[in-house]
Each structure stands twice: as C-alpha cells, then as structure tokens.
C-alpha cells in the first residue's frame, strides 16, 4: 500500500461522503410507511412530509452522528491504547456515560445537563479505567479489557439499582436506553449532540497526525517528538465528549467503534489522518443502514414492531469481537 498523500486523502473522503449521502437518501425512503415520491414533490401530502421530517430524517441524522462519533472515538482509543480491541463499549466508557445520563434522568434534569453529565462520567470512567489497567507504565491488552468488562458490570449494577427505585415510565425509558435506540423527534437534541460530537471530532482530527506515532507506544512517540501526555489528555477529552453526547441520547450501542476502524484499516491502511475521518464517515453510513434494517426487519411480518439498533450492532459485533480476539491473540500475550 502506498503511503498517504493529500490526493488519496481527498478522494477517499469524497467517496465516503458521497456514499453516506446515498445511504441517507436511500434510508429516508425506506420504511414501514410508504412515501409516495410524486405526492411528496408536489407538496400535496402533509402526512408524507411529517413522516419524512419529523420521524425519519431526525432519526437518520442521529444515526449518522452516533455512528460517526462512536467509530472515530473507537479508532482514537485503539491508537492511544495500542489495542485493536478497544472500543467505547468494550472499554466501559459507554457504560460510564450511560450511568451518568441515567442518573441525570432520574434527577429529572434538562437534556443539555444530562449530556454534560454523560460527558463528565465518560471522562471519569476513561481516566479510572486507564489508571486501573496501567501496570508499571505499561497497558497490557488483557488487563485493559478485563477492567472494561468489570467496570461495565459495576455500572450496570448501579443502573439496575436506580431502575428499581424509579417510576414505571422511567423503567421503560432506562431499558430502552440500555439496549440502544435512535428514535427521536427532537431537532434540538440533535443540534446539541451534533455540537458536542463535532467539537470532539475536530480535536481528534487535529491530533490524528500525531496518533500514528502514538500508536507505536509512549516511548517511541516521545522519541518522535510527540508530547504524549498532552495528546493523551486531548484525545481522552475529545473522545469522552463525543461518547457522552451520543450515549446520552441513544443509550448503549455497542461494537460500532470496534469493527468500523478495523474495516477502514483493511481497505485504506492504518494511517490515522485518514483512519479517523474515514471511520467517522463509514460508521455514520453503517449505523444508518443498521437502523434502517432495525426499523424495517420486523414491520413486514406479523410482529409490527421495531428492533432497537443496539440489537443489530451487538449481534454483528459480538462474533466479530471473538474473531478479532482470536486473530490478535498472539499479540495480546
């Protein structure tokens, strides 16, 4: 594979952007309710417009933002922790963010504050997991994953505790949250989390040039002139911002940050300057498509219901995690 050049970068980003737009256009028209093209463009049908702008489009935008945020944050974690199995979900950061947002919901806080709480708890979780898993200046892969799993279990325990002391409506909300879902009607929410995620993504993009050196390990990165401590803070901050934002709306959607960066690496190589934005775009397309599948899978049969998208990603992601783990085993030891 040839090293990255500006023209390769531009053409790949262009291609992926076109793909994402195509996916969004496709997904807008697909769904349980048929939308009539002709009627829609003649602007004669209120109903079609409502479905499109108040049901499907916000959901698609949310899916795209969430997929993009989870995937690029996953890629950044993998670089920084030198671990291809790291992902907001497996690391326990999403679990921490979920705990923060559920706590906020339980207190009945407004949405922006809930997002902020999710961000703070994501950042605290990342710091805590990093601190626990670090042994004598090293970060062994298995310790990291084990810490993430235990931390997730711990967060779940607290969440279930909260679940048993809140009202029945909140119970339903919490369960939906734990599975992960993209249904929303609120453009305001989308704007808030779009802002958070966009800000985080901007920091990741700026840092991506140094992530290549960072992924070779702290010491090598220092030798190559990278201020490791500072960049670690930047990246943890940015990724937590993104994860906190999307988790506070969509709940726990797992594994997207695991397999999207892996696929991007297979196709375009490991250079983070391309990996970060390409993961964001691929992740956005992927989650949008997954959600379209989730929306339509059971509505055509006798069930007449919608699957939460977290079910789809977990069903795909679980086996993929095992595959990666088996493949990486020699590196993990």
């Amino acid at each position, binding site marked *: *594979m040839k*090293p990255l050049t500006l023209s390769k970068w531009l053409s790949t980003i262009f291609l992926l952007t076109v793909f994402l737009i195509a996916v969004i256009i496709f997904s807008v028209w697909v769904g349980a309710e048929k939308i009539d093209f002709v009627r829609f463009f003649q602007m004669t049908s209120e109903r079609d417009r409502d479905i499109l702008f108040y049901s499907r489009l916000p959901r698609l935008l949310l899916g795209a933002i969430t997929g993009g945020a989870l995937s690029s944050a996953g890629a950044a974690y993998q670089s920084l922790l030198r671990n291809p199995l790291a992902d907001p979900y497996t690391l326990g950061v999403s679990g921490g963010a979920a705990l923060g947002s559920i706590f906020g919901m339980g207190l009945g806080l407004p949405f922006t504050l809930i997002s902020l709480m999710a961000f703070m708890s994501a950042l605290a979780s990342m710091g805590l997991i990093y601190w626990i898993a670090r042994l004598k200046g090293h970060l062994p892969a298995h310790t990291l994953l084990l810490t993430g799993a235990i931390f997730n279990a711990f967060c779940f325990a607290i969440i279930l505790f909260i679940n048993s002391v809140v009202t029945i409506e909140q119970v339903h909300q919490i369960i939906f949250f734990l599975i992960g879902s993209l249904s929303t009607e609120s453009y305001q929410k989308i704007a808030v989390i779009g802002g958070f995620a966009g800000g985080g993504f901007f920091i990741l993009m700026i*840092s991506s040039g140094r992530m290549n050196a960072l992924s070779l390990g702290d010491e090598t990165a220092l*030798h*190559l*002139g990278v201020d490791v401590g500072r960049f670690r803070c930047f990246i943890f901050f940015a990724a937590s911002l993104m994860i906190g934002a999307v988790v506070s709306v969509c709940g726990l959607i797992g594994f997207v940050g695991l397999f999207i960066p892996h696929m991007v690496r297979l196709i375009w*190589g*490991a250079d983070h300057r391309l990996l970060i934005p390409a993961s964001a775009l691929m992740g956005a397309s992927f989650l949008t498509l997954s959600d379209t599948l989730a929306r339509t899978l059971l509505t055509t049969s006798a069930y007449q219901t919608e699957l939460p998208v977290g079910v789809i990603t977990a069903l795909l992601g679980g086996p993929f995690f095992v595959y990666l783990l088996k493949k990486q085993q020699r*590196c993990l030891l």
Partner: protein
Amino acid sequence: MIKIQHLHFSYDKTPILKDISLSLPKGGFLGIIGPNGSGKTTLLKIIAGLLKNYRGEMTLEGKSLSSLSRQEIAQKIAVVPQDTSIPFSFTALEIVLMGRTPHLKLFAFETKRDVDIALKAMELTEVRHLAHRLMDDLSGGEKQRVIVARALAQQAPILLLDEPTAHLDIKHQIDIHNLVQRLNRDKGITVINVLHDLNLASLYCQEVLMLKEGSIGFHGPTKKVMTQDNIEKIFEAKIYVGQNKDTGQSYYLPRS
C-alpha cells in the same frame, strides 16, 4: 555538544544513577557498556529526554535539556529503541515516514522531499525493497533495520541506540554498525550506543563508558579502558582478551 554534570537519578527511592558526569563533542562515538541493571538504559533515556526528574545538569548544544520541547528534542536526537512491537498494520515505508514527525506541522502530509528522505534512509539500511510490505510480515532483522531507517529519516545530529542489533544475525550486526560508523564519520553524526557485545563495542566505539551499579566505573578511549582488568572488575566475570593479528583489534571471550 552533550554535557552531563553530576547527574543523579532514582526510581522511587532506589538510586539508579549516581554522580554521572560526561561530555561528548560533536561527532563523538560513545559506547556504554556494563552489566544488567547497571543503569545503561536509564542513562540513555535521560539523554533522550524521557526521564525528567533527575538531579544535576544536562545540556544539549549549551541549552538545558529541560528547556527544550519534545519536538525540539526530536529534531536533535533520534533513538533506536529495543522494543519494536507495532500493533497495527503499517507498511515499512509508513513507519520510516513517521521519522519525519518532528519536522511536520500538527496536521500535515509528508511532501515528496519527506518521502525521498525516507526512501534514502531505507536504502542505507537495505530495506528499500520492503517499502510497501506490512511490518507484520517482516522478519525480526528486517523490522529492526526499518526502525534504524526511521531514526535516520529523523535527520537528527545525535543518534542514540539501545542494543540495536541484539536480535540480528552477524551480517546485519556488522552492516548496521558499519552504517552507523559511516554516518558518524561522513556526516559528523554524534553516536551514543548502549551495547552488550564487548567485541562490537571495541570494534566501533571511539570511547567507552563503563557503568557499574549506577556509577561510572571507567571512561576513556576504547583501547585504553577496555582492558581485561577493567572489564573483569565491571562485570565480575572472567574473560580472555586476545588480539587480532591482522588488525591489531582486541577481542573478548568468556573464560570459565
């Protein structure tokens, strides 16, 4: 160009380095030898600016090391470390191009010139033909030569090596050291090399620093200090020193 005065360093409370003073002129070639745990690697890390909380003074071209940013240090010092594990599928050329990091802006692409410098470095370490192969697919020796090429691509006037040929066969041991010697002679690059192999040390280094339990045991021109007495004292082992009749070089063998 490198000057260290009364350097002390300790991890927790265990002293690792005690009262190290040394100065190395531009174009010098220093070997650091000593038994395991004598503080060789720690000393190298301090010179590379990795460990900060030392006592004493260390200057680089007259400037205190602690006053320089990471990027400034990396433009002056390149390091070939021991550990070469790489978790992601980078190609050899991509790894060598990372040597250009200290010369690049925060988010920038390498120019044609950077790629040329990287390829030239790969030519010198004889890995040019592996440029587009993945690091995972290379042998240990090939990987290490790629890492040396990365350090060369950094184009720093000082090169630090931490047992760069520990895992290489004899041909590549000689090739890498010949290359380092050539860079030292032709380009005036200052070299500090931590070595386990006494023969390589005596063959290539102009001067040798012998560490024992964190202190300088002996320091001086290679021929003068690498005597049987000194080495036996430092390593607490019996050795035999012979002489190559053709070149007059000393060689060292273990004695039971």
